């Protein structure tokens, strides 16, 4: 699809034309602006003093008259120009986007993408569907990466000793490093690079090491996966890495593994996992997930059985489970000390379940866990016969890079004279015991290559600015080894260099042009016509058949003994001896995305905190510390009367001390945490970053040392009761309050029979209210029809809107299509990718922490996260259960955007008809009509409308309240990221999800152009993908024409578990949900016959629920299991209950 363009040299006009501001500060330095700031009011505002009133009115009258004359004389808008290209550019028609295949390199992999460009300007990233493991899906980081390209705070110039350096000077510098080093065959030269999967880089590094045999090549990433690799090496005697095939696994045990987000192949794992959760009919099997974890990850939220356990106890757990699975005592010494509630029963039931599914189960361990855990997990998978079925091992090239510790000791010895740091940010994220920032100062020459000026640049002599991956030629391998291209969408905005060019220049290669380097690598791999091969590679966005080969592995227990000799001792935890667990923040990763406003504002999927990180503490520990919110009922947030500010969470500051090092941060109480584990999300507290990332959150890296990269024990926590920190938490309310918002059921009844998938309609107000659409179309009547008939009936109802029980007549909808959406709550993992994709597609502004604290975030789609622990009182909300923060809740996640109600409540209250219905069933917003009364938002039952309280796009976030005194206008760079097909909204208008109306219209236009003088105007199903649907890694979102009974969305909507959120309001939302299913094991001690949210529902609405003597009731609601970490017996009274007895 893309060939290499010969870019013409910039003309004089371009060079003298408008320049991008390197920063707003630079702009602010102009004398004119300074003068403006110094003046209290704008010019002429104070001149009125000299004019008397009479004269003023005279002037006013005259100016009005002049205005009238001007109008009558043909006052026109200002003259505008059309500027066509001087020379024609192939393929470009202004207004039509072009898509190019590329890839975003990640630490050890890459995510294949299609970049949407508008006249050479990338605006949006989509996944490349040609790469089937990801199926066109991406994640939030990929979506947000395009914002980094246009970040006004990125390094815009290379510097040497603080002075700007020209491109030629940088080239000289790099060549000099190489020529100096070649004298002593590389002695004194060292490199510290981030991990990369690029074959070209690997080749260059090999050349470099050959040329400079004495040079040190070290690689460091804050994230880790060494343990799993070293365990695999020991267990199988080969350099292999595991690739899990979750789609084939019916039973999955996750030992502290966040395989939805933290692994390099996470997109594949998410997709494959949810394939076992897609329930279309009664017979479809559903996988079962056991999650054992210390923090609360999205894997835990999907788990059917979740066990809270400290990370440092995972080894003991793995050993105990292995003993049960293998039936011998090899590992049992390691399990000594392990203790949790119903331990034996839990392990027995879990092991029995695994043994019953030999070859179709899989056990995974978190990458932060020690090698012993991975070794045991491999052993268990071998015993269970999973290898080659649900778990493949692939041969990976062994890394021969040195570690950062080796480099640090070389620096200490003084043997490093020149250090080249490629990417990364070691001064910020290197293990604290190395004290890397100080070490760097002792190196005579530090050359730093990086995208931002950061903590490392601050202690480096020279900073070489990097090009963004959307500006670079390169290549990479995905996590399964497939080679993918990285091709530039735009010329480097600030003449940054690519990493391979830097390496080639240091190595003194004859070819330094990155395009040629990549061309040579790829064409060297494949035979045939080189040009043709390379073109095909760029067109497809991948090189077919280059995935790593599957290895046949043989488990070698003997090889593991050196690993087990180093097994850590079991340490019991208590309030005085806490465990800290380091995770990477879901928003900023290891800190690399700290200056990305889209990610900063996207709330954490579980805590829902944006713009911040916090020390997460368990409810039990919070109680011990006395920081649990005594007064609040259903809130996790602290809302004492005295500290009530803006209605937002005011968190106490806590100080965590490990081995004499102390860090501080706000304390957020997180339900579901292991009792004595503190979760510390890394990546915040940057001291040198851009305007977005600097000084936001707290830095926990100082606690992390070489030996405690994953977790540490022996921590102490002190609460500073007198200090408070506001957390911009977008959802403090944790409970559904026993309402039927997310509708859940267990997949199988206790007797093993499949649950009636129509359960969603057996509870809730609709279940006993008159049917909205009239009795002939009631749920019961619909259930009698076959799926095909139901689809046809529903397609008809979408057009001929029945009056049903409504007070009003509804006009029929006459459009060719009728748009609708279905969201599968059973597969949605809550990863936030849709939130950021929507932001990128629809020009949604960033509002900043201050405004999020006021509840003014602008996201068109939000993910609601609910906790339920089954404890709720029927008699109002004052029962004891409600005053406790749940220690061991289930989590239900629900994406909510505008539901496009057919009888939309927002429309009838709009005084100016700014929000109306179109003939294809869309609830549309005409921004130009909106006068900002906000009545619509008031009347929206879903609270999905967003109001522009400020001119977010034109004003910088720290000057929102300055009114006309603040700077106005968008920096040129930021303008470039906007989608030209979507209006940029101004202050005072309402906005909300449009179902990506721009994509709908473009598809319709395209179809009509194709139709020409014919009537084929109906868009084929699947042509339009909304931004949230396109990005969704688990295909939870389906969008399409509900008028067509054969469309995918119609087929989703006729499933039995389809329901409308707040359907009883008779507003007939076009978005509907598929109910959530859980698949607990009846043999497990924490088995509950109903999901906990359902229990809450029943308890609230059915006073007799759970109180019949026949059903036990040995412990009342609200009585928590005091010590144990597992949900205890207090749910057993549900067993055998007639689930729907109280309702039908």
């Amino acid at each position: 699809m893309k060939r290499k363009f010969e870019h013409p040299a910039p003309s004089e006009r371009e060079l003298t034309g408008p320049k991008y501001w390197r920063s707003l500060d630079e702009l602010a330095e102009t004398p004119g602006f300074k003068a403006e700031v110094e003046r209290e009011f704008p010019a002429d505002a104070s001149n009125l003093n000299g004019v008397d009133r009479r004269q003023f009115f005279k002037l006013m009258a005259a100016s009005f008259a002049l205005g009238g004359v001007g109008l009558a004389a043909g006052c026109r808008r200002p003259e505008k120009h059309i500027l066509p290209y001087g020379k024609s550019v192939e393929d470009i028609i202004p207004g039509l986007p072009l898509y190019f295949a590329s890839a975003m390199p990640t630490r050890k992999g890459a995510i294949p993408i299609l970049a949407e460009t508008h006249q050479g300007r990338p605006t949006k990233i989509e996944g490349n569907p040609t790469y089937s493991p990801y199926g066109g899906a991406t994640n939030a980081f990929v979506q947000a990466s395009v914002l980094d390209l246009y970040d006004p705070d990125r390094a815009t110039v290379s510097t040497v000793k603080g002075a700007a350096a020209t491109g030629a000077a940088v080239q000289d510098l790099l060549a000099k490093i190489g020529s100096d080093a070649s004298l002593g065959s590389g002695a004194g030269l060292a490199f510290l690079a981030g991990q990369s999967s690029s074959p070209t880089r690997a080749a260059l590094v090999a050349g470099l090491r050959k040329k400079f045999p004495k040079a040190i090549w070290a690689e460091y990433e804050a994230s880790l996966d060494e343990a799993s690799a070293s365990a695999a090496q020991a267990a199988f005697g080969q350099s292999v890495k595991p690739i899990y095939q979750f789609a084939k696994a019916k039973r999955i045990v996750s030992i502290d593994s966040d395989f939805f987000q933290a692994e390099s192949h996470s997109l594949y794992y998410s997709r494959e996992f949810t394939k076992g959760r897609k329930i279309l009919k009664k017979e479809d099997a559903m996988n079962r997930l056991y999650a054992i974890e210390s923090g609360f990850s999205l894997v835990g939220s999907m788990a059917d059985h979740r066990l809270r356990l400290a990370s440092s106890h995972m080894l003991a757990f793995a050993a105990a489970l292995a003993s049960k699975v293998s039936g011998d005592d090899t590992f049992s010494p390691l399990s000594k000390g392990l203790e949790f509630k119903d331990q034996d029963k839990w392990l027995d039931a879990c092991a029995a379940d695994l043994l019953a599914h030999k070859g179709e189960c899989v056990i995974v361990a978190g990458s932060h866990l020690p090698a012993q855990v991975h070794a045991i997990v491999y052993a268990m998978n071998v015993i269970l016969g999973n290898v080659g079925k649900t778990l493949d091992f692939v041969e990976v090239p062994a890394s021969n890079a040195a570690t950062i510790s080796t480099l640090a000791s070389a620096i200490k010895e003084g043997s490093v004279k020149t250090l080249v740091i490629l990417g990364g940010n070691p001064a910020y994220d290197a293990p604290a015991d190395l004290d890397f920032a100080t070490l760097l100062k002792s190196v005579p020459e530090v050359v730093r290559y990086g995208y931002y000026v950061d903590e490392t640049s601050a202690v480096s002599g020279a900073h070489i600015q990097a090009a963004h991956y959307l500006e670079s030629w390169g290549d990479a391998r995905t996590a399964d080894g497939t080679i993918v291209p990285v091709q530039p969408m735009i010329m480097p905005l600030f003449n940054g260099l690519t990493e391979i060019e830097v390496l080639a220049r240091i190595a003194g290669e004859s070819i330094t042009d990155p395009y040629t380097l990549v061309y040579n690598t790829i064409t060297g791999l494949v035979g045939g016509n080189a040009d043709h091969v390379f073109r095909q590679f760029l067109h497809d966005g991948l090189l077919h058949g280059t995935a790593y080969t599957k290895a046949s592995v043989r488990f070698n227990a003997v090889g593991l003994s050196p690993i087990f000799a180093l097994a850590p001792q079991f340490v019991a935890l208590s309030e005085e001896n806490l465990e800290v667990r380091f995770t990477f923040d879901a928003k900023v990763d290891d800190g690399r995305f700290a200056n990305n406003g889209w990610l900063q504002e996207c709330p954490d999927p579980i805590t829902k905190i944006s713009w911040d990180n916090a020390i997460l503490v368990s409810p039990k520990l919070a109680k011990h510390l006395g920081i649990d919110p005594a007064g609040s009922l259903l809130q996790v947030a602290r809302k004492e009367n005295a500290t009530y500010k803006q209605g937002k969470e005011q968190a106490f500051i806590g100080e965590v001390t490990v081995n004499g090092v102390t860090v501080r941060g706000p304390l957020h109480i997180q339900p579901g945490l292991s009792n004595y584990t503190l979760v510390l999300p890394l990546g915040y507290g940057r001291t040198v970053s851009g305007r977005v990332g600097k000084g936001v959150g707290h830095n926990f890296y100082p606690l992390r040392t070489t030996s405690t990269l994953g977790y540490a024990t022996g921590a102490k926590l002190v609460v500073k009761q007198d200090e408070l920190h506001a957390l911009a938490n977008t959802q403090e309310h944790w409970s559904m309050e026993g309402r039927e918002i997310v509708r859940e059921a267990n997949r199988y009844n206790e007797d093993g029979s499949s649950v009636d998938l129509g359960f969603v309609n057996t509870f809730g107000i609709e279940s006993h209210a008159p049917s909205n659409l009239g009795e002939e179309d009631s749920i019961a009547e619909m259930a009698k029809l076959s799926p095909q008939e139901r689809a046809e009936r529903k397609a008809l109802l979408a057009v001929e809107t029945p009056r049903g029980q409504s007070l009003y007549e509804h006009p029929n909808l006459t459009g060719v299509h009728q748009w609708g959406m279905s969201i599968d709550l059973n597969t949605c993992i809550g990863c936030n990718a849709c939130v950021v994709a929507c932001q990128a597609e629809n020009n949604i502004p960033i509002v900043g922490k201050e405004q999020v604290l006021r509840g003014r975030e602008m996201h068109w789609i939000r993910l609601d996260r609910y906790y339920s622990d089954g404890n709720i009182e029927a008699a109002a909300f004052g029962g004891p259960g409600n005053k406790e923060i749940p220690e061991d809740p289930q989590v239900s996640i629900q994406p909510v955007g505008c539901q496009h109600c057919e009888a939309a409540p927002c429309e009838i209250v709009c005084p100016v008809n700014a929000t109306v219905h179109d003939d294809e069933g869309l609830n549309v917003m005409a921004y130009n009509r909106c006068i900002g009364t906000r009545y619509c938002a008031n009347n929206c039952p879903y609270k999905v409308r967003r109001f522009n309280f400020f001119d977010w796009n034109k004003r910088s976030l720290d000057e929102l309240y300055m009114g006309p005194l603040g700077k106005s206008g968008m920096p040129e760079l930021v303008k470039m990221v906007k989608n030209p097909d979507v209006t940029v909204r101004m202050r005072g208008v309402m906005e909300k999800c449009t179902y990506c109306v721009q994509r709908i219209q473009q598809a319709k236009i395209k179809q009509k152009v194709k139709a020409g003088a014919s009537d084929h105007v109906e868009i084929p199903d699947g042509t339009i993908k909304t931004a949230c649907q396109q990005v969704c890694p688990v295909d939870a979102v389906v969008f399409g024409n509900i008028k067509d009974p054969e469309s995918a969305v119609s087929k989703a909507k006729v499933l039995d578990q389809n329901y409308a959120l707040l359907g009883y309001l008779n507003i007939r939302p076009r978005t509907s949900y598929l109910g959530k299913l859980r698949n607990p094991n009846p043999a497990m001690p924490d088995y509950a016959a109903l999901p906990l949210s359902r229990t809450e529902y029943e308890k609230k609405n059915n006073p007799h629920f759970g109180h019949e003597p026949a059903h036990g009731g040995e412990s009342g609601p609200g009585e928590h299991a005091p010590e144990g970490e597992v949900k205890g017996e207090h749910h057993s009274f549900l067993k055998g209950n007639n689930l729907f007895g109280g309702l039908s």
Partner: protein
Amino acid sequence: MSKLFPKSANRLPLQIIILVIVLGSIVTAGTTYYATNSYINVGYAPVQPVPFSHALHNGQLGIDCRYCHVGVDKGPTSTVPTSQTCMNCHNQVKPDSPLLEVVRNSYASGDPVPWVKIHQAPDYVYFNHSVHIARGVSCVMCHGQINEMDVVHQAKPLSMGFCLECHRAPEKFVRDPKLVTQLDWKHPGGDAGQLEDGKKFVHDWNIKPPQSCSGCHR
């Protein structure tokens, strides 16, 4: 008080009311007439950097609209031709004309010719040329007899009302897509013939021009 106000002051309220009504009517009438696209914009004919004549190129020489406006049947914009398009002919025809100096310079340097925009939809309107061309809406409907213009001027108001006039009654305007660039074409059967054919096209091609906001505003 009678010393302060003469008797004629009693008539003042009535006079004021009448004055307000008269003034109000004048302002209303004035605004409706003067402050609309059809008054302000119709006839706008700015001086262009190159005195290009559509009457010559299209009207006399018969070059099809789409030779230069290449995007008109493909994308939202009709695309003003690049200087290279002009030079296709003008490196042979009148290669030294001083009037073409700007175009030659542009072609040599790559800098655009700053054509002055005449037909302008507001930023919040997402007009698309290709769909109109493909479905039989002629250029002449919005741009007038360009083929007779030496200097292009705006011929139609291009206001929302103007768009809706056609979107509400497409049968009065649609023609065979093959004829869209024939600006002189009139239905041989006159208005009645147009209406008859138009109705047939609207039915056969399932023409349902959008009349709701989402058609043009996103």
